[in-house]
C-alpha cells in the first residue's frame, strides 16, 4: 500500500453552518500538498479532523488504506494554527516533553532535538524560555516541535505565515528533506506565491467544498485558456480584425488575446511576422492566484 493520507467524503457542521461538505483529497507519499482557501473555507477544520481534535459528521480519514487510528496520529507531525509553545519552557525541554508524549525514548528524543536545533540554527537559544525568542525563532521552534518524533506524515497549518524570506527557505529545506524520505506533507497557506513555488500537489477549498485538486502541472494545464501574448515592433492593433482572435488587452506594441477553438496560433504568428519583427509570442500560463480566483468563485 502506498503511503497516502486520504480524506474520503468528510463532512462537518457547526450548529447550522456546514463547514465541510463531502471533502475528499489525497496527500501522497513524498509530495508537498498545498492546501489553499480563503479564511473560513474549511482548511483548519479539515486539519483538525485529520488530527482527531474534531470528529467528522460523516466520511473518514485513512492512512495506507485503513482508517487513521490514534497510534497513527501519534506518528503525525502537527503544527496548529495561531500556534505557540509553552512560553516559559525552554525549547529543549518542550522538545523533550513532546517527543516523549509521542512515544519516543529519552535518548532518541535527545538525539532528534540536538539535530533539529542545529539544523534550524537555534543552538544558542535552545535553553532560553521560548517567550524570549524572536518571532522568527519561535516559528522555527514550532517546526522543531512538529518534527521532534520523526513523523511519518506532516500536517502544518499556515507554517509560513509571519516568516521572513530566509526563514521560509530554512523551513522549505527541512520539509523537502522529509518529502525526499517519502513523508507526505500537507500544508495550508494563503500566501499563493509561496504555495506556487513549493507544492507538488494542490488542493483548493472554498465554502467547505473541494473546488480543485491534483498536481500543480495538471491543474495549470486544466485551467490554461487558449490565451496568447504578442509583442511586436509596431502597433498590434491589426489583431482586432484577425479572424478567431478576441483581444483582451492592447497596449501599443503589446497585446494579449484569446483564440477561438478552431483558430491556429501559428497562423496568427505568421500574420504578425508578415507585418514586421516579432519580439515575443507565446501562450499565457495562469498564475496560481488566477486559477484560485477562477475556481474559488
Amino acid at each position, binding site marked *: 500500500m502506498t503511503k497516502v493520507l486520504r480524506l474520503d467524503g468528510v463532512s462537518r457542521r457547526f450548529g447550522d453552518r456546514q463547514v465541510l461538505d463531502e471533502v475528499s483529497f489525497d496527500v501522497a507519499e513524498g509530495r508537498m500538498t498545498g492546501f489553499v482557501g480563503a479564511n473560513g473555507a474549511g482548511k483548519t477544520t479539515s486539519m483538525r479532523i485529520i488530527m482527531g*481534535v474534531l470528529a467528522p459528521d460523516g466520511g473518514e480519514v485513512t492512512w495506507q488504506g485503513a482508517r487513521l*487510528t*490514534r497510534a497513527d496520529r501519534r506518528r503525525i507531525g502537527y503544527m496548529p494554527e495561531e500556534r505557540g*509553545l*509553552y512560553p516559559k519552557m525552554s525549547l529543549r525541554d518542550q522538545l523533550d516533553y513532546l517527543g*516523549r*508524549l509521542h512515544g519516543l525514548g529519552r535518548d532518541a528524543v535527545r538525539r532528534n532535538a540536538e539535530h533539529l536545533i542545529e539544523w534550524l540554527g537555534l543552538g544558542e537559544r535552545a535553553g532560553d524560555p521560548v517567550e524570549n525568542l524572536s518571532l522568527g525563532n519561535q516559528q522555527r521552534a514550532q517546526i522543531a516541535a512538529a518534527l521532534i518524533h520523526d513523523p511519518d506524515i506532516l500536517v502544518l497549518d499556515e507554517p509560513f505565515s509571519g516568516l521572513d524570506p530566509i526563514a521560509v527557505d530554512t523551513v522549505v529545506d527541512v520539509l523537502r528533506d522529509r518529502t525526499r524520505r517519502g513523508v507526505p506533507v500537507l500544508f495550508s497557506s494563503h500566501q499563493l506565491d509561496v504555495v506556487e513555488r513549493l507544492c507538488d500537489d494542490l488542493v483548493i477549498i472554498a465554502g467547505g467544498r473541494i473546488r480543485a485538486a491534483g498536481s500543480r502541472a495538471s491543474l495549470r494545464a486544466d485551467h490554461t485558456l487558449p490565451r496568447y501574448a504578442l509583442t511586436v515592433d509596431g502597433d498590434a492593433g491589426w489583431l482586432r480584425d484577425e479572424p478567431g482572435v478576441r483581444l483582451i488587452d492592447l497596449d501599443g506594441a503589446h497585446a494579449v488575446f484569446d483564440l477561438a477553438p478552431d483558430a491556429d496560433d501559428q497562423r496568427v504568428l505568421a500574420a504578425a511576422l508578415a507585418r514586421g519583427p516579432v519580439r515575443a509570442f507565446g501562450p499565457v500560463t495562469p498564475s496560481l492566484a488566477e486559477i484560485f480566483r477562477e475556481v474559488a468563485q
Partner: protein
Amino acid sequence: MNTYEAVRIVAAREIRVKLRDKAFLFGTLFFLLFAVAGTALPPLLAGGPSSVAVVGQAPAALTAAGLDVRPVADEAAARAQVRAGDVDAALLTDGTLVAMTDAPGDVENALSTRPTVELLDPSALDPVLSFLVPLFFAVVFFFTSLTFGLQIAQSVTEEKQTRVVEILVASVPVRVLLTGKVLAGAVLAMGQIALIAIVALAGMRIAGTGSELVSALTPAIGWFLPFFVVGFVMLAALWAAVGALVNRQEDINAASMPVQLAVMLPFFAVMMLGDNPTAMKVLSYVPFSSPSAMPVRLFHGDAAAWEPFAALGVLVVGAVVTLAVGARIYEGSLLRTNGRTSMAAAWRDREARRLAELDAQQV
C-alpha cells in the same frame, strides 16, 4: 506508550515546571519560615530563667526552680540592682518581691504554694489550642486547595491559549492530560504540606513542646491526610474544568468564581462555627468542608470511632461525582477555541465522546 506512562510524563512536566517557578519556591520557603517561627522561636525568645537578688538566706525553692539567684547585702542594694536592670526582681527579708513593672512569672511561681490539681476530664484542652488547631487544619486545606487549584487552572488555560493542547490531544487522550495535571497538583501539595509538617514537628522538638500536645494531634493529623488528598483531588478536577472554559489567563478569575466559593464558604463556616457541635457535625460530613471539619472534631474527641470512616466515604463519593462532572466539562471545553465557553455548553458538548467512539470502533 500506555496510559500510565503518558500520565506520568504529563505529571512530571507539571512538577518540573513548578519546581523551577520562583513564586512557588518562595511561597514554600515562606511557609517553612513561618512553621519554624511558629514552633521553635517563642520559647527561645522568652529568654533564660529570671535573675533575682536575695537579701539574706535564699529559699531553696528559688534555686530548685533553676533561677539565677544573687545574694545582696541589704534591701537598698537589692532595690538599686532592680532599678538598674541588673536583676529582674529582688526578694526582701520580709518576703516582699520587688520588681520594676511586673513580677517575673517564674519567680512568682517558685515562691507560691500551689494546690494539687485533679482533673476530672483530662482530655479538656488548653483554650488557646482549641482555637489554634481548627485554624491550622482549615487554613492548610484552604490555602493549598486555592493556590494549587488556581495553578492547575492556569496551566490548563496556558495550554489552551497557546494551542499546545491541540498537539497534545493528537497524541494522548484528553483524560490523560487531566489526570496528569490533577496528580501533579496533589503530589506537589502533599509534598509541601509534608515538608511543613516535618519542619513544624522538628521545631516543636527543638523548643521542647510537651509530648501531650503532639500525641493529641497525631490522630487528627493522621485522619487529615486522607481527607486532604481526596478533598484536594475533588477540587482539582473542578479547577481544571474552569481552566478549560476560558481562553485567556485574565478570564480565569471570573470563570472560577463557583470553585472559589466552594473553597471559601466551607473555610469560613469551619472557622466561625467551630464551637457549635451540631454545625460542626454537619460540616464534618459535607464533602467540601469535611477535610477541615472532621479532623477538628477528632482532635476535640467529639467524633465516634466510626464517624471519620463514614465521612471519608461520603467524601470519596463526592469526589467521584465531582471528578466525573469536572472531566466532562474539561473535555467539553478544552478544544473550543472561540471565546469563553459556558458551563452548560461544555456539559452538552459531544465532541470528546464522538472522538472516543471513533477510536473505539477501530479496535
